[in-house]
């Protein structure tokens, strides 16, 4: 290639590389701006609404600021070196002066990164301490979460509540602290509990008890899901956390503790439940069903989703799910129940009363 051709291709190279650089900054910003319809349901780690997520967020801003500064300096150096020291069209063909190194320079660019590491290490150690060794206040709510393939068992041991996939907790305020302390276990393989706006993730590992906590400061629905690959339906092991005002939470608790009166109109449906394989896997208070393999169904209608978030809990969806859960969650461990149309009508009518 001639020198002129080389110079031209170098100019192209430089223009294109500046394009790449700007794309690196602009594309992400534009995309974050183009948010989804209900931005409160975007589980972004940068919009925390609970204490551990808050302190992580603040630490992450420090880390991002330091990283951005390093990035700009080093990219600037690379770009400057590449442009300033490119071979020119009018090059004389001689080799440039050979420099083999410089000890002072090496010491400088070793010391500065070391100092940055010290700063980051101290900030990190502090937040680790703050989050992991936080004392549990008297007013804290105790919850146990047990991971299953592919759903969440949720227990409130002091309240005697057993539910699944949708965690309800009270909101915390300055004068009335109500953090939730969670014990995490697994019934089968490793899972991970992650609701980004409330807290970082913690794994659920069989034969081991892990702990985490959250202290939400805003009411509402927060989305999360299993974050450790746990088999076929890992993607549909979704998690919903509802943060209530103290009054709403009390109401939810009393609803969950209420004993549902036997309704003679749906007795046939209850019989269908008790006479099919349902009872092997599902607990339903007031029936013979005491299985532990699947979610507790005692207050099924108080939940907004079926199949750990696989589909909304509506009468039609429930019927379709019972007949063919695989359609919504391929590989799910619940078999299709093969009920007759009458049986399905009766069962659905019965389940609809489990408020």
């Amino acid at each position, binding site marked *: 290639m001639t020198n002129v051709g080389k110079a031209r291709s170098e100019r192209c*190279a430089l223009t294109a590389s500046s394009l790449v650089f700007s794309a690196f900054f602009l594309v992400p910003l534009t995309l974050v701006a183009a948010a989804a319809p209900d931005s409160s349901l975007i589980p972004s780690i940068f919009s925390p609404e609970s204490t551990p997520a808050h302190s992580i967020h603040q630490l992450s801003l420090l880390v991002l600021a330091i990283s951005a500064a390093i990035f700009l300096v080093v990219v600037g150096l690379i770009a400057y070196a590449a442009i300033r020291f490119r071979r020119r069209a009018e090059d004389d063909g001689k*080799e440039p002066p050979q420099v083999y190194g410089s000890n002072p320079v090496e010491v400088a660019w070793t010391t500065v990164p070391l100092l940055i590491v010290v700063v980051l290490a101290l900030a990190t150690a502090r937040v*680790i*301490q703050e989050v992991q060794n936080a004392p549990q206040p008297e007013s804290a709510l105790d919850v146990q979460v047990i991971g299953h393939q592919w759903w969440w068992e949720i227990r409130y041991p002091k309240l005697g509540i057993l539910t699944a996939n949708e965690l309800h907790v009270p909101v915390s305020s300055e004068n009335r602290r109500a953090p939730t302390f969670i014990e995490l276990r697994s019934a089968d393989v490793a899972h991970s509990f992650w609701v980004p706006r409330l807290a970082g993730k913690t794994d659920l590992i069989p034969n081991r008890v892990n702990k985490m906590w959250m202290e939400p400061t805003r009411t509402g629905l927060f989305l999360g899901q299993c974050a450790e690959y746990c088999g076929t339906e890992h993607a549909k092991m979704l998690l919903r956390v509802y943060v209530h005002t103290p009054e709403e939470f009390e109401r939810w608790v009393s609803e969950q503790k209420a004993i549902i009166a036997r309704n003679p109109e749906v007795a046939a449906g209850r019989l269908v439940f008790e006479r099919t394989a349902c009872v092997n896997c599902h607990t339903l208070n007031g029936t013979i069903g005491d299985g532990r393999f699947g979610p507790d169904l005692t207050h099924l209608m108080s939940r907004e989703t079926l199949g750990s978030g696989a589909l909304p809990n509506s009468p039609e969806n429930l019927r379709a799910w019972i007949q063919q859960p695989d359609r919504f969650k391929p590989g799910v461990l619940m078999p299709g129940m093969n009920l007759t149309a009458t049986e399905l009508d009766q069962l659905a009518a019965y389940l609809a009363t489990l408020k």
Partner: protein
Amino acid sequence: MSMPGSSSAARSVFERLHSWVVTVDHKKLGLMYIMYGLLFFVVAGVEASLMRIQLAVPNNHFLSPQVFNQLFTMHGTTMVFLVGMPIIFGFANYLVPLMIGARDLAFPRLNAFGFWLSVFGGLLLYFSIIGAMGMYGAGSAPDVGWFAYSPLTSKAFSRGHSTDYWTLGVLVGGFGSIATAANIVTTIVCLRCPGMTLMKMPLLVWLNLLMCGMVLMVMSPLTAAQIMLLLDRYLGAHFFDTQAGGSAVLWQHFFWIFGHPEVYVLIIPGFAFASEIIPVFSRKAIFGYPVMVGATVTIAFVSFGVWAHHMFCVGMTSVGNTFFAISTMLVGVPTGIKIFNWIGTMWGGKIRFDTPMLFCLGFLFQFLIAGLTGVMLAVTPFDWQLSDSYFVVAHFHFVLVGSLLFTIFAAIYYWFPKATGRMLSERLGKWHFWLFIIGFHVTFDTMHIPGILGMPRRIYTYEAGRGWETLNLICSLGVVLQAAAVLIFVWNVLRSLIKGQRTGNDPWDAWTLEWSTTSPPPEYNFAERPVIRSRRPLWDVKHPTDPDWKYE
């Protein structure tokens, strides 16, 4: 009917193939390693593309969850064990003897043995697709993820034999890696030409010595873990059997004390390529050679003390978490030193932007970003959010694609004329570079954001309305550009093998010993044993009045 002409031609083709199969020549084995790696690179690339089609839109039904899970398991396992490892061993095989003035590796037969073991391991892994008798139909590929966390791999959760094919394939390939690493270490220690003290070796040789030393150490825990898993599955052992008191976390420790140094095993040869190519195209000696050696030794050493940063979410104590956060951040220091020394090499040079150098510049840019996101992940609380999210996926693709693969492409463009006697087309090379780097950034810059928005990795589909749709679509679109770039690269290689411009011994005006012999080199490499006095023996020859040995 006898046709003497055609039958003798057929025999000669057969004989030529036969000569490759039985060869113990380090150059032929090196090229076979690289070709084997590139072949699986295309396979694993197709697997990735299928996954990106599935994830392009929410609630997609293009792939079933079972197939998707097999694809990411095979993609990861293939890229690490059947692409990365063979290609870096291929280059080490080809270049180390040439660069130290030796005629072959120390143990040529062991070399062939190592190569064919790796091939057998790879074929065993892929045979699972028809032979594994898994849960779904006749056969099934492994679906436990490339780090195969227990107890998902136990008999209770992984029926059939797909996990066994994974275990055995990786185990057998690992034996091959141990054989080759031992061979290269021995070669570098024992077969250097007269005058080549350790501190006069080209950096590529130094870095491959460290890489192979690390391979010898990391393959042991991996092999041990795979054997324990086999014992669990077939002889009723309970190492990882949580139902019987075994430990799921034990597997993670074993795997990551292999897995994290393995990342450096893969990227150190990338550093090695950059450390040879950047000086030649900047027309300057490498800046701070002893510091570069020291920094790499430090990286290799510290990398054995960082493995549990993959496990910040498993519930370690705050002391453990803090220790691994700090040790991980410390790796950033020698890594930064290397980046600065490469910039120092370019500083004051006369930089030629040929394709190998373009890929090295891309490497510098991407490796800087990979390092910075790596520091973010080392900050334990930040990692509690980012771990196992798409942010991590983006981060390690910046390491393995943006950094390692870029330097591999640089190395292929740089040493292709040495191995074949013909140049790769510069015009196609530039197309390859620009399409690939743009496609890479479209896919992997974007991919950080769904992770920040709460998207976990390894999910076969996702719900709409979480802010992930557009981002995933963009990630998937970038694949088109990358695939086009790879097609251009394949075309460039095939075309240049036949029509490439013929070249002399030393097309880049370079300084290390491999450029002093013919292209391609004869079977014996050097007619006479070279004697050197400096790190750049050809510089000394080309500049007799101003030789390096006066200054080193």
